[in-house]
C-alpha cells in the first residue's frame, strides 16, 4: 500500500533540522563518533518539561515537533516509534549507580526514563495525545516495522500517523561497540565509503514523518512501499528481492532516478553493496547516505528524510552534486550488518 508523507523532522550529524542550513553546508565531523547537531531545545519543548529528558528524548521530541509544525498538524491520530537501543544514556546511568551503590540509595528518574517507549510516551504527553502509541525495538528493522505499523493504522482508517526512529550513541555504547570492531580506529577522510576499511563510523539521530493515506495538498512525497529481508541466504537472493519489490510497486528499474545505499565503508559490510552496484543498481546514480549520518540501526530514518527532501525540493545541495533532476523515484536500500535489509520506494507527488 502507498501512503503520503506530509512532513518530516530530522536531527542527525548534519544540519537536517533546518533545510537552508542543510543545503548550505555539509557538516564534516572528525573521528569515528559523529554527534547529532542538536538545536536549542527550548525552541521546541517547554523548559519545565525538559529537565528530566535525556538526549535521545530531547532529540525525538524536537524532531517530532518540527515534523508536526511543518504539516501544521497539532494532533496526530497515532504515534509509532522505532529504536534499536532505546534510552541508553539513562540505562547506563541507572546501571552504573546500581553497581556503584551496591543496589542501595538509588533514585527513580533514570530508571523510568530508560524504558524503550519513553520517546513515544513523552511525545504523547506533550501533545496530550490519547491515541494509539506503540514502540518497535527490533534492531535493524526498528524503523521499518514501526513504519509498517503506521501504514496498517492508515489502512484501518486513521488519518494522520506520526512515525519515527531514534537512536543515540553514548560514551559507554561507543566504547563497547568499538570493541566489537564496528568503528574505523583512525579516520583520515569523512568520505567513509571512498575506500574500504575495517569498521565504519558511529552515527545517531531522530527522524519523524507525518503519514496520511489521502493525498493532502502540500504532501511532500509518496511512500510507495517498504520491504524487509532478514538474514538473506545469498547476495543474489537480495538482488531478486529488489526486482520483486520494484515489480510489486509497478515501477520499472529504469524509473529509479537515485539509489540511496546503506554502504558504510566497512569491507565485509559493503560486499553486498558492491555486488548490487554491479547488478541491480548498474548504471544508476548511487549515493551512500551513511557518509552523512554515520552507521546506526535506525539510520534508514535519515535516508528516508533525505529522499523526501530531494524529491520534494527537486534540487540537491551543491555539495551533493551527482543527483539529477527531474527526480521521480528514489529507491533506498539499507542493510545493517547484512542481517537486516530494508527497501523503500519513494515517489514524487
Amino acid at each position, binding site marked *: 500500500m502507498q501512503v503520503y508523507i506530509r512532513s518530516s523532522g530530522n536531527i542527525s550529524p548534519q544540519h537536517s533540522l533546518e533545510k537552508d542550513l542543510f543545503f548550505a553546508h555539509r557538516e564534516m565531523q572528525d573521528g569515528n563518533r559523529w554527534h547529532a547537531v542538536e538545536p536549542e531545545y527550548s525552541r521546541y519543548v517547554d523548559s519545565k518539561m525538559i529537565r*528530566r529528558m535525556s538526549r535521545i528524548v530531547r532529540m525525538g521530541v524536537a524532531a517530532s515537533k518540527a515534523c508536526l509544525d511543518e504539516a501544521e498538524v497539532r494532533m496526530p491520530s497515532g*504515534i509509532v516509534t522505532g529504536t*534499536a*537501543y*532505546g534510552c541508553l544514556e539513562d*540505562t547506563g546511568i*541507572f*546501571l*552504573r549507580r*546500581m*553497581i*556503584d551503590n*551496591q*543496589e*542501595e540509595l*538509588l*533514585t*527513580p528518574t533514570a*530508571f*523510568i*526514563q*530508560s*524504558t*524503550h*517507549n*519513553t520517546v*513515544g*510516551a*513523552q511525545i*504523547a*504527553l506533550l*501533545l*496530550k*495525545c*490519547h*491515541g*494509539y*502509541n*506503540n*514502540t*518497535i*525495538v*527490533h*534492531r535493524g*528493522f*526498528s524503523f521499518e*516495522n514501526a513504519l509498517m*505499523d503506521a501504514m*496498517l493504522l492508515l*489502512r*484501518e482508517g486513521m488519518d494522520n500517523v506520526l512515525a519515527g526512529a531514534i537512536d543515540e550513541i553514548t560514551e*559507554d555504547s561507543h*566504547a*563497547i561497540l568499538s*570493541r*566489537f570492531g564496528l568503528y574505523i580506529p583512525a579516520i583520515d577522510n569523512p568520505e567513509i565509503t571512498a575506500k574500504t576499511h575495517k569498521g565504519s563510523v558511529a552515527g545517531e539521530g531522530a527522524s519523524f514523518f507525518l503519514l496520511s493515506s489521502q493525498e493532502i495538498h502540500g504532501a511532500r512525497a509518496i511512500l510507495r512501499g517498504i520491504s*524487509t529481508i*532478514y*538474514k538473506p541466504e545469498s547476495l543474489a537472493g537480495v538482488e531478486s528481492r529488489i526486482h520483486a519489490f520494484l515489480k510489486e510497486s509497478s515501477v520499472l528499474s529504469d524509473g529509479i532516478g537515485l539509489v540511496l545505499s546503506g554502504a558504510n565503508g566497512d569491507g565485509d559490510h559493503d560486499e553486498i553493496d558492491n555486488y548490487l552496484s554491479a547488478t541491480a543498481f548498474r548504471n544508476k546514480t548511487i549515493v551512500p547516505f551513511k557518509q552523512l549520518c554515520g552507521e546506526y540501526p535506525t539510520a534508514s530514518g535519515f535516508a528516508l528524510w533525505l529522499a523526501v527532501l530531494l524529491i520534494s525540493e527537486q534540487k540537491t545541495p551543491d555539495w551533493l552534486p551527482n543527483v539529477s533532476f527531474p527526480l521521480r523515484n528514489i529507491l533506498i536500500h539499507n542493510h545493517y550488518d547484512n542481517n537486516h535489509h530494508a527497501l523503500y520506494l519513494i515517489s514524487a507527488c
Partner: protein
Amino acid sequence: MNPPVFVAGLGVVSAIGLDAAACLHSFETEEAGMADIKILHTRQRGKLPVAEVKLSNEALAELTGLSSGMPRTALLSALAAREALADAGIFNFKDLRAGFISANTVGGMDKTEDFFESFMMNAAAGKLRDVVYHECGSITEIVADHLGINHFISTVSTACSSSANAVFTGARMIRHGLLDLALVGGADALTRFTLNGFNTLMILDKSFCKPFDEHRQGLNLGEGAGYLVLVSEEIMNRLNKSAYCRIAGYSNANDAYHQTASSPGGTGSFLAMKNALENSGLVPGDIDYINLHGTGTNNNDIAEGTAIKLLFDPVYPKMSSTKSFTGHTLGASGGMEAVFSALAIRHGIIYPNLRFETPMKELPFTPVTKFLNHQRVKHVISNSFGFGGNCTSLVFSAS
C-alpha cells in the same frame, strides 16, 4: 467485517508452572508463585518476595536446546514459544507466511549487568559475549532462529503492555492478510536492573501482593513468558483441531498524564477497554470476565477500577488479577494473561484474586476470590497498562 483471527495454540512459563497444564493446576489449588529470591543474584534477597520461574538457566537451556549462556529472557521465551507451536500442531513453516512478534523490556540486561561490573573498572574488561544480546530485538532473533521463523520478525517494547501490543500486532497482520500465522506474546526475566528500578518507585510490596484490596501495598515482580499461535480461518481449518477462541478485538490508547503514574480517572484504561469493545462489536454487558492489569499498586488499581466503574456500571463481570499468582512479569504479562484468558474460555473457569480481603472504598465491585468451574465464559477482556501511559485491552471470544 474483519476476517476472524483464531487462537490455535498457547504456551506459558511462569512461577506457577512450566507449562499451561501446570499453571492451571496452581490456579485450581490456589498456590501463588511468590517466594524469597532464590535464583536472581541480588542484594535484595531476603528483603523482597518475587515470583521466579524455579529453574536455573542451565535447566532451562536443557529444556529448550539453547545454550545456557543465553540471556534468561531468551530461554524463557523459547520454552513457552515451543510449547505454543507444539500445542497448535505446527511443526514447520513450509508454505506459511509465519511471523514471530515478541515483546520484552529487559533484553539481555541480566548479562549486561555482569559485563558492566568488569567494564566499569576497566573499559577493556568484561566478556563481549555478555553484551552481544543486550538489545531487546536480539532476544526475539535468538528464538526466531531457533524456531526457524524468518518471514517476519519484530519486537515490541512498551513497558508493561509490551506483549499485549505484540498480540494485537500479530492479529492485525492476519486481519490484513499479511501473515497466515503469527506467534505472538512476550517474555521477561527478572533482573537486578528492573528489581532495583521498581524498588526506587517504592511500589514493591514486602509481602505477597493484594490487588484491588483497600490495604494493598504494591506489586511483586515476577518473570515468565506467554505466547499464542494466531492463525487465519484458512489455516485453522487446515489444522484439524478446535480453536481455543478468537481474538475479537483490541485497542491501544494513551493516558497522556504522566511518565509513570496513571491518571486518577483512568482515562487511558477507559479508552482502551471502550475502544476494544467497539472493535469487537461487543457491549460491556457481553463481557463475562476481566483479566485485570491489577498490579496491586495504589495508583494502578484505583485508576483501572475507576475506568471499569465508568464503563461497566451498574452490572459488573467477574474479574481477577492473575498477578496475585504470577507476580507482575512486565513485558511478559500481556502474553501470559492472554494465555490465561484463552484457557478461561476453553475450560469455562475463572481464576481467583488471591489475598483479597477488604473492598476498595471507592469501588462498588470486588474481584472473584475462589477458583470457579463450570462458568459461562464467552467473552473476556484482558488489560495491560504500562509506563508512558501505554494502555492496551484485548478481547477474546469463544469461536
